[in-house]
């Protein structure tokens, strides 16, 4: 079984400032890692995912994340945020040994961007 910890429940940030959202996971097996974003009153959509290869993954809207196996982390970053980045962000993992995709989601981090 896996667990996902998002260390910050809420992150306030000023427009054009950088932001980092922290995600740590615990698992006895290798995992795939995902970041999803949920805009107000909408469903979740994929920002990026790490399956294999380069540990630095680039996603949509200027976001990127780095997989660190030794620290079991997958932190999400954006160098300069916009007001439109105000949303809730979810980190998720799935088990590489599973033949099907049962995801474990973190509790989410609410990002509030102010001018």
């Amino acid at each position: 079984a896996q667990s996902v910890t998002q260390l910050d429940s809420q992150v306030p940030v000023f427009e054009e400032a950088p932001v980092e959202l922290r995600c740590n996971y615990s698992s006895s097996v290798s995992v795939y890692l995902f970041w999803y974003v949920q805009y107000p009153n909408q469903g979740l959509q994929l920002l990026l995912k790490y399956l294999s290869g380069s540990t630095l993954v680039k996603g949509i809207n200027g976001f990127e994340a780095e997989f660190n196996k030794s620290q079991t982390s997958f932190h999400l970053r954006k160098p300069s945020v916009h007001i439109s980045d105000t949303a809730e962000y979810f980190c998720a993992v799935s088990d590489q040994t599973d033949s099907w995709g049962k995801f474990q989601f973190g509790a989410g981090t609410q990002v509030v961007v102010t001018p």
Partner: protein
Amino acid sequence: GAGVSQSPSNKVTEKGKDVELRCDPISGHTALYWYRQSLGQGLEFLIYFQGNSAPDKSGLPSDRFSAERTGGSVSTLTIQRTQQEDSAVYLCASSLQGLSTDTQYFGPGTRLTVL
């Protein structure tokens, strides 16, 4: 093409009543998931359908919850004798093959309020 749709978008019901929530997945997606999102919580897995296989019901919180998927497409989540703790947003997602590497595409959710 069309994304995942859910209906109704909002449902207010009285304690003890039954409710049905509907999900229309993306055409051609064989896997369908139901999640529950409570305030301040992450996404709680409820049930998973994959093709014609028996569904994984391991996340259903009680026997008041059931779900079916007809013709490998539309799914209905039924909650019998609703309780106030059932109040949450119910999210449906679909993926192409249900693999642990697949992106899940989410609907906008049904907000259920039990009075």
